[in-house]
């Protein structure tokens, strides 16, 4: 209650002060007639409103004059009025679309890219599907499972093409005599990517289909390494593949004898292999589909591509019996009949490679060469291994010597030195074996 009373008392005293100021001025100003600012077009009503206020409150009219006086007083004292500086607020983008030229161009590029993506993706898919539909009847005749994705159950499996990317498609076929599995892969031009489409115009690579068959290895199958194909592609593979490079060589006379297409080359580890594989039926089919077939490679020592320059294998990778066929889709996809013929040729070569019998000495020669290659490889890697062991030994002696130098305690240093001398003496002493005579 005291606080309330005190508060009210305080409020009343400030009220009085507030009006005190006006009372003095009120007495002064009423004598002089306040200049009336008559604005043009101002309705007379305003005047009537002023009289009304004067009679009742007698205060309101003076106030605007007072405010003007106060403002005039302030401006006379401060420096001349500064020109108003407008902050540099960027205009909102909705107001000037036209100036967003760079953004418009980038958005246009993205739109073009995405429409080309949709068109390219559907083109690739339709080409791949039509070729797969041509291959499917033959594949279904030959394999128990076609288009395996590795997860769905075998009985619910529907032969279908797997989309690896928007330009590569594949189908895994398995369940056939002489073959563990056959991986059919289509690598198309990346039509869905504008940059690749433009690059394709300069360096045309074309659509390719590769067949990679893992052949069955039994102890009565004879060793063979054979490759035939168009010159440019065949020589590229010859340089890349480790088995071709190590065992095979070009067989020019054999190629001429079979009057293969002029632009083709034959590689084999022995002439006998060429004569047993290239029978007349095969040669006629190769000539008929010379454009569609690019390269055929059959090998019992397939270890993949050679290691890159400078690198080398420390251990020879496991060799497997393998067949690789590269086809050009541009010519392959023209009619179903040629597709069937080429696929049947592939299966015919698989069975032929399995049943092929070399003469005795040809077989012995092949086995010997493989043995020589393995020994040479082990010798080479032995050298590597020896160098590595030598390096490790030197590293250890350097570490021991370093430890000896860093040792502060003289006694320990002496002991280490003695140990070191003993080791060196032992290394230098001739190696003698004690034989116990019974």
């Amino acid at each position, binding site marked *: 209650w005291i606080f309330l009373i005190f508060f009210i008392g305080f409020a009343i005293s400030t009220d009085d002060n507030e009006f005190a100021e006006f009372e003095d001025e009120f007495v002064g100003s009423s004598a002089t007639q306040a200049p009336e600012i008559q604005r043009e077009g101002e309705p007379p009503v305003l005047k009537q409103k002023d009289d009304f206020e004067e009679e009742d409150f007698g205060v309101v009219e003076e106030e605007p004059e007072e405010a003007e006086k106060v403002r005039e007083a302030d401006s006379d004292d401060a420096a001349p009025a500064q020109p108003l500086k407008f902050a540099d607020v960027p205009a909102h983008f909705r107001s000037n679309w036209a100036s967003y030229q760079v*953004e418009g161009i980038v958005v246009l590029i993205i739109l073009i890219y995405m429409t080309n993506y949709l068109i390219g993706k559907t083109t690739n898919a339709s080409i791949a599907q039509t070729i797969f539909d041509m291959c499917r009847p033959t594949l279904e005749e030959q394999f128990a499972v076609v288009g*395996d994705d*590795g997860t769905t159950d075998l009985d619910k499996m529907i032969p279908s093409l797997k989309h690896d990317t928007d330009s590569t498609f594949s189908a895994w076929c398995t369940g056939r005599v002489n073959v563990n599995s056959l991986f059919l892969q289509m690598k198309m031009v990346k039509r869905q990517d504008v940059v690749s489409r433009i690059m394709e115009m300069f360096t045309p690579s074309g659509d390719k289909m590769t067949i990679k068959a893992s052949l069955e290895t039994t102890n009565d199958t004879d060793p063979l390494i054979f490759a035939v194909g168009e010159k440019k592609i065949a020589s590229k593979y010859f340089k890349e593949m480790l088995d071709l490079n190590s065992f095979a060589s070009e067989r020019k006379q054999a190629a001429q004898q079979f009057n293969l297409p002029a632009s083709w080359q034959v590689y084999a580890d022995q002439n006998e292999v060429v004569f047993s594989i290239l029978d007349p039926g095969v040669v006629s089919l190769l000539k008929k589909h010379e454009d569609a077939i690019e390269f055929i490679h059959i090998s019992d020592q397939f270890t993949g591509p050679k290691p890159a320059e400078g690198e080398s294998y420390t251990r020879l990778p496991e060799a497997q019996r393998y067949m690789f066929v590269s086809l050009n889709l541009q010519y392959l996809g023209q009619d179903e009949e040629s597709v069937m013929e080429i696929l049947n040729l592939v299966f015919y070569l698989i069975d032929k490679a399995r049943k092929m019998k070399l003469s005795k000495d040809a077989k012995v020669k092949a086995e010997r060469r493989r043995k020589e290659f393995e020994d040479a490889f082990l010798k080479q890697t032995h050298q590597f291994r020896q160098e590595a062991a030598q390096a490790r030994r030197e590293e250890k002696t350097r570490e021991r010597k370093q430890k000896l130098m860093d040792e502060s305690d003289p006694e320990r240093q002496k002991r280490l030195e003695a140990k070191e001398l003993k080791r060196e003496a032992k290394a230098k002493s001739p190696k003698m074996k004690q034989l116990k005579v019974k």
Partner: protein
Amino acid sequence: MQQNGDPRRTNRIVRYKPLDSTANQQQAISEDPLPEYMNVLGMIFSMCGLMIRMKWCSWLALVCSCISFANTRTSDDAKQIVSSFMLSVSAVVMSYLQNPSPIIPPWVTLLQS
């Protein structure tokens, strides 16, 4: 066993192993490293767009994400491509929210000088 000239053998099926083993994954990447490069480039450009507020970096990040999207493999998971798109779009939006004025086209500065 069907022996009447039918080569199919249901007992010799070798199932397909999808690209889960790292060796196959490595091989797929070594065959076509483009999506990986574009993804990293996109991330760098969107970081520049967000941190240094360079508008053209944000736009380039968006283009890189589109290229990476066009070359993705179905075996890659979608998270990577979604995150690169979100990052580049946010870089573009942030750089325009902060300063909506357009990029000054290079041809304008050339004409003026």
